[in-house]
């Protein structure tokens, strides 16, 4: 059955579209995009106001879905539900599950659960090393064969330069990028917060920005040495951004991502409004204003390639402990778009087209995924954004199984109207009244 999205503001950077267009879908495919497309008999027409942005489905290349092994935090089904509620038609999930996704059995299990959930597309990321132990390479050909789209030991760094070198060399045979959790472990030590005024005052052990940038410099050098592809995950420190710029200037195959919390928040959140709130404990930590501002600058000037959430659900019980005992991480899937609109687009830092590059075009390209464009013949994965929707973040309404976010109660401008995966409306925001997409 054909359906026509008529009259929305289409933003499709790959095809150079940024204006009012119609999008014709047939089943799970995009058939045609154009102005005032003729309507056949039998085509369902959905009128969309030009206040709404129709864009290629958003892709979050850094989420933790916790299954298998930690289903009390999140499952693939709840994570996929959170993804579509946040406007993401696809997510790439990290391998630090229990057991670790270092073999085809785990990869296939994830894909099976994702197919059962039948919401967002889920792309597994395999481990670099067996058990993420940093000793021996995982069976990378097997992981690729089973459906992994990248490799990482995320949650842990690849501690030795030689293993990272071999990983970059070996992965390049399969066109798999290595996603790099940059952390020099001895410098991080048992740190729990950014090393600076706030941590010092509160008596929290610090993690300097250099713990991240030292490893970024190392691995960018190794990307140059090997010709491999490295993607710097969840960049937090201004020195790391310098490392990425250095690498790009030299032609190294390096890309990078920033999370919404690292371009919105600073370590001031450690002290107020709620001192020692474990929902502001994440790794890498919230850094100081100079770092946050550097991330904003990098997003605006093109140095940053991707916005990814590092969605890291943790159970309420695990977070209701002493700050230094709490696990690192916050959820992100259901707050990302609102934070991006409010703090980037409406703040005048970037255009909507640039936002779509960061949230869709570039992550799809880096991981080699279908998607990232509204090209004719492509899968009908679309997100309909409501740039002026007033959103009040409420953990009680979230689809994620966990509630560990510091943004609860925040009022932000911009949100999701609907999410369409394979031509099927998998999420429709009840707060948006004038869209009739229900199937």
């Amino acid at each position, binding site marked *: 059955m054909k359906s026509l999205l008529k009259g929305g503001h289409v933003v499709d950077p790959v095809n150079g579209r940024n204006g009012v267009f119609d999008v014709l879908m047939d089943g799970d495919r995009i058939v045609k995009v154009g102005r005032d497309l003729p309507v056949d008999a039998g085509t369902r027409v959905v009128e969309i106001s030009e206040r709404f942005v129709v864009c290629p489905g958003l892709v979050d290349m850094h989420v933790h879905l916790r299954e298998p092994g930690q289903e009390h935090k999140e499952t693939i089904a709840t994570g996929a539900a959170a993804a579509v509620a946040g406007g993401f038609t696809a997510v790439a999930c990290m391998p630090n599950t229990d057991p670790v996704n270092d073999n085809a059995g785990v990869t296939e299990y994830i894909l099976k659960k994702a197919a059962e959930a039948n919401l967002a597309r889920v792309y597994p990321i395999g481990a670099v090393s067996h058990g993420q132990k940093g000793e021996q390479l995982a069976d990378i050909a097997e992981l690729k064969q089973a459906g992994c789209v990248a490799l990482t030991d995320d949650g842990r760094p690849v501690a030795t330069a030689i293993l990272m070198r071999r990983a970059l060399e070996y992965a390049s045979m399969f066109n798999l990028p290595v996603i790099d959790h940059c952390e020099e472990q001895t410098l991080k*030590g048992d740190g729990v917060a950014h*090393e*600076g*005024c*706030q*941590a*010092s*005052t*509160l*008596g*929290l*052990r*610090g993690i300097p920005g250099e713990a991240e940038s030292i490893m970024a410099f190392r691995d960018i050098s190794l990307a140059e040495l090997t010709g491999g592809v490295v993607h710097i995950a969840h960049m937090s420190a201004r020195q790391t951004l310098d490392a990425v710029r250095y690498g790009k200037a030299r032609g190294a195959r390096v890309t990078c991502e920033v999370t919404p919390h690292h371009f919105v928040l600073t370590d001031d959140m450690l002290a107020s409004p709620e*001192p*020692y709130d474990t929902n502001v404990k994440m790794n890498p930590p919230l850094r100081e204003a100079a770092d946050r501002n550097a991330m904003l600058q990098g997003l605006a000037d093109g140095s940053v390639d991707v916005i990814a959430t590092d969605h890291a659900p943790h159970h309420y*019980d695990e977070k*209701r*402990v*002493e*700050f*230094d*005992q709490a696990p690192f991480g916050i959820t992100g899937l259901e707050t990302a778009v609102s934070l991006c609109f409010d703090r980037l687009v409406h703040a005048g830092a970037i255009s909507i087209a640039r936002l779509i590059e960061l949230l869709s075009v570039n992550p799809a390209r880096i991981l080699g995924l279908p998607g990232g464009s509204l090209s004719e013949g492509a899968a009908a994965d679309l997100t309909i954004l409501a740039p002026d929707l007033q959103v009040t973040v409420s953990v009680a309404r979230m689809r994620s199984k966990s509630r560990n976010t510091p943004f609860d109660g925040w009022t932000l401008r911009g949100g999701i109207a609907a999410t369409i995966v394979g031509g099927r409306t998998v999420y429709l925001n009840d707060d948006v009244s004038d869209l009739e997409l229900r199937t």
Partner: protein
Amino acid sequence: MKDLLAISDLSGEEITLILDTAEAMREIGERPIKKVPTLRGKTVVNLFYEASTRTRTSFEIAEKRLSADTLNIAVSTASVVKGETLADTAMNIEAMAPDMIVLRHPSSGACHLLARLCRSRIINAGDGMHEHPTQALLDAFTIRERKGRIEGLKITIVGDLLHSRVLRSNIGLLTKLGANVCACGPRTLIPTGLDRPGVTFSTSVDEAVAGADVIMMLRIQQERMRGAFLPSLREYFNTFGMTAARVARARPDVIIMHPGPMNRGVEIASDVADGPYSVILEQVANGVAVRMAVLYLLAGGAEGSEN
């Protein structure tokens, strides 16, 4: 004020009120019958997750002199292994309706967690590397008694600044009352970002003690060699240890303080610790009066007491 979590929450006036109240409380300790009925019928739980002799005893004596019903809970690592969280322990204690909980805990911010969960008043008896507010109050009380004032004094603090909750509380308190604090220690043990008006940092102990009115020593923990903070305790003593020769660079009426427990021959020479400038045992004595004042004021002061 519901709780005493940190000096940083107190105004200069509140600090002065506590110190003035402690003056009156000290007099109770000098009577033949060292007990008043002020907190009769109030229940105070001393919940200690770290070994402590001085602080726990000091709180307990203070509570008993005010006629509170006191209960000591020393949580061994065994029950931590059993898996009960601090939050659950606190809520169980809370269910038995104590009036106040005095908490010592190795994690910074543990008292804030308790204060969020409990209606009982929380007194911080030391949380991780964060604060030890009653120690700073008794230090200030001792300085004020000996010097007649705090404003304008040069107060030199020497030792492991990075890991010290006593330092953090003292910087907050002493700068609020107008002292000039010089914090001195090896570069590896100086925290970043604590600079503020009234505080200077130094790595030269000779410079730091020159002209000091007060010298406060901080404990050096034996395990600091492990994180490569220090080469050896011997080198530490030679470079930063408080010796009579160094004390001689301070003002002639200098007082030497230490929050305890002391490592003789590591941060302080015995002849200094036991010498005429030392007020270390006065600090211990004053601790009881200051804690009585805190307990009394948190219980509601004159309006909350029986008489």
